[in-house]
């Protein structure tokens, strides 16, 4: 089957949905939005951990190549915004300023009166404002803060650590506690029910279960141009909305291709398409925001799996040590996976589930070239190669130690880390008193022994005007292939400094508006 479009957007997550809606509203161009996963409306959501696997990349089993770090990623219409816990952080201005000075990024003005690229009102504050309004970013009311989050704030208070309420993109949340398997009640303002709904209303065609095999380039050497994509439509499962088109091979001709498939799939697609990679920087510099859960056992019973999952956090150590504490909680399978050991002691601990509270460290990791995404052509799979640097391990040890203290400060009688490492005199990081927190200094974070998780892959197809890592210019355009953009978390030169959803959406809004103002640049 052959299709034509003016603009093809690959990926319908935080970036793709916003790009599609913005371009549809501001242009009269024919736009196709392609998504690898299915299109699952809220009513199809099943509130079970195993029942939600179809919403995730690799059916929820994606991880680093050695299997040691679970790397969570949404693979459905809405992408990560469908399955995240709605935590919103404005773009961190200091990070963008650093990118400007270190990576030569230009424009992206943080002055709300700026007209970047000569386009009226194009700047970051205006883009952010649009996103904030459309996805309804706000602080949750006090009565929606559940026990888990309350205990976290009490622990912080006891330890002299500042804490805040998250901002969330929800509307009239009823507190079911199942954000991570998709919102059954359409109360989470994912792109699926906001920007993508807008895009569809303005004529964008969404083709889901679309596996893009490669981007088609014409021309050679310095004169390459993206002219379309090749892929196939797969059968949608019974939970998904049906596709308009039949399953089979598809070629789409387009004037502009925008890749927005996330920091794992975007570089993989460029590798598959044989995108130029003269400095061997494609896929490199991967950021994952490694996360380490901290588990407490309280004396009293709590109901932590209901209410808003995450409503409190601490950025107390962000400036000094580059990490956050974020309050979250898990359902039974996750909890069973995080509690160390097996057999009787493990089950005895699980029986304390109603007394368990938890939060996690989220480390803003350092970009290094050896951490990367590569495409395994033989296995036809992306491979994520990642190790914590020694510097990052040091910061994570500090975060673990202070986190254990905060957990004791919250009233916990015991504190655990999801680890089988022996530290100091302890067989495992199972602390019975606060003074034992110092043994966190012995943690090696050995793969498969201490459980690190991730959900924030970034920086694998970096912007950078003159920087060696730069695959893209500041317009998120490929430096090597005309009419090809990559606009998602992979475009960040390093960590965006916080949970990335709103930074991605703001950048996408900004770039969507820019493209609409510069259509002639792409011959559209």
């Amino acid at each position, binding site marked *: 089957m052959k299709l034509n479009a003016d603009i093809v957007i690959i990926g319908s997550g935080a970036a793709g949905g916003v790009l599609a809606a913005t371009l549809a509203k501001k242009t009269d161009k024919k736009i196709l939005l392609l998504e690898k996963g299915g299109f699952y409306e809220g009513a199809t959501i099943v*509130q*079970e*951990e*195993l029942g939600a696997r179809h919403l995730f990349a*690799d059916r*929820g*089993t*994606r*991880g680093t*190549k*050695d*299997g*040691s770090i*679970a*790397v*969570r990623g949404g693979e459905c219409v809405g992408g990560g915004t469908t399955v995240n816990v709605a*935590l919103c952080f404005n773009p961190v201005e200091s990070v963008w300023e650093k990118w400007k000075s270190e990576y030569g990024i230009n424009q992206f003005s943080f002055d709300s009166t700026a007209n970047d690229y000569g386009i009226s009102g194009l700047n970051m504050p205006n883009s952010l404002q649009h996103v904030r309004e459309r996805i309804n970013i706000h602080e949750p009311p006090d009565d929606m803060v559940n026990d888990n989050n309350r205990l976290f704030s009490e622990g912080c208070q006891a330890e002299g650590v500042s804490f805040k309420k998250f901002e969330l993109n929800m509307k009239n949340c*009823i*507190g*079911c506690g*199942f954000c*991570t398997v998709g919102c*059954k009640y359409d109360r989470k303002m994912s792109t699926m029910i906001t920007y993508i709904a807008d895009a569809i209303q303005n004529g964008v065609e969404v083709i889901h279960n679309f596996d893009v095999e490669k981007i088609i380039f014409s021309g050679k050497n310095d004169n390459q141009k993206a002219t379309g994509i090749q892929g196939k439509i797969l059968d949608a499962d019974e939970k998904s909305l049906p596709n308009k088109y039949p399953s089979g091979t598809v070629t789409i001709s387009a004037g502009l291709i925008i890749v927005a498939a996330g920091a794992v799939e975007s570089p993989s697609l460029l590798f598959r398409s044989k995108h130029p990679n003269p400095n061997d920087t494609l896929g490199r510099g991967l950021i994952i*925001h490694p*996360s380490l859960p901290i588990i407490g056992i309280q004396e009293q*019973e709590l109901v932590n799996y*209901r209410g808003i999952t995450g409503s409190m956090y601490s950025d107390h150590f962000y400036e000094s040590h580059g990490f956050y504490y*974020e309050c*979250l909680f*898990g*359902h*039974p*399978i*996750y*909890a*069973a*996976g*995080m509690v160390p050991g*097996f*057999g*009787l002691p493990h*089950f*005895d601990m*699980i*029986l304390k*589930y*109603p007394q368990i509270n938890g939060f*996690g460290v989220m480390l803003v990791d350092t970009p290094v070239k*050896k951490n990367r995404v590569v495409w395994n052509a033989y296995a036809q*799979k992306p491979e994520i190669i*990642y*190790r914590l640097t020694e510097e990052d391990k040091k910061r994570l040890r500090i975060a673990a130690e202070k986190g254990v203290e905060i957990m004791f400060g919250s009233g916990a009688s015991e504190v655990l880390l999801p680890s*089988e490492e022996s530290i100091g005199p302890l067989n495992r990081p199972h602390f019975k008193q606060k003074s034992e927190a110092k043994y966190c200094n012995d943690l090696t974070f050995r*793969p*498969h*022994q201490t*459980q690190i*998780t*991730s959900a924030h892959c970034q920086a694998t197809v970096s912007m950078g005007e003159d920087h060696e890592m730069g695959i893209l210019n500041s317009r998120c355009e490929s430096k090597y292939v005309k009419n090809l953009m990559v606009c998602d978390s992979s475009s960040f030169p390093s960590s965006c400094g916080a*949970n990335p959803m709103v930074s991605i959406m703001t950048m996408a809004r900004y770039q969507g508006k820019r493209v609409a103002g510069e259509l002639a640049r792409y011959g559209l």
Partner: protein
Amino acid sequence: MLSDSGHFSRRNFLKAITILGLSSCTPFLPKTRFIHLLTNDPHPDHYNPILRSLINLVLPFDHVRFPAITPDTVLKNIEIHFPLTEERQEPFQRAFVLFNDIQLFKERLPAILDEEAKLFREFEGLGKNDINLKIEEFMQHDRTLFNEFEQKHGHHGSFKDAPKAAQADYFYLWSQSRFNIRRMFFNSAKGVINACSYCQEEMWDVMGYAGYFDPKENQ
């Protein structure tokens, strides 16, 4: 921020197992049963009892508060979510069989060493000499662990036939190995078994988890 998908990876588990099952072990292991294992697809009658033993170890069915879930329930869930009978799961089947051979823990299994060397190269960019030093250190560490295990429990050949205390310490040994692939087996086996038991509503009842949300709860 934190994964809610449980910390196991079938794909990586399978990959690990593939490596364990590589026939390059053969020349170094003059054990006919091992050669037989590597050249013949395990029959369910061969690997299921080992998996069943592991299920019995990971889950305390004799605990007074353990719900009315049996190893068969867990096996059935594994068949639904991680079907072992598929042809592509042969490496997975073999892994259990290899895990069962307790004495292999102390052996220099080239496939495991090669995999560890590959990880050092790919993940940490180490050169050959550094890798060799690391691997020798790892072998020494694992042999020390194994000797301690044997001092405590005596000689055992088969995991599934060993007493439960020895089984537990042997399984734990895999979590303490310096070799990535063994720790991966520990995590993955624990993860799959937990996932296929803690998905049961009977389990939720005993752990005080109400499960599905009923909007009437808010009224």
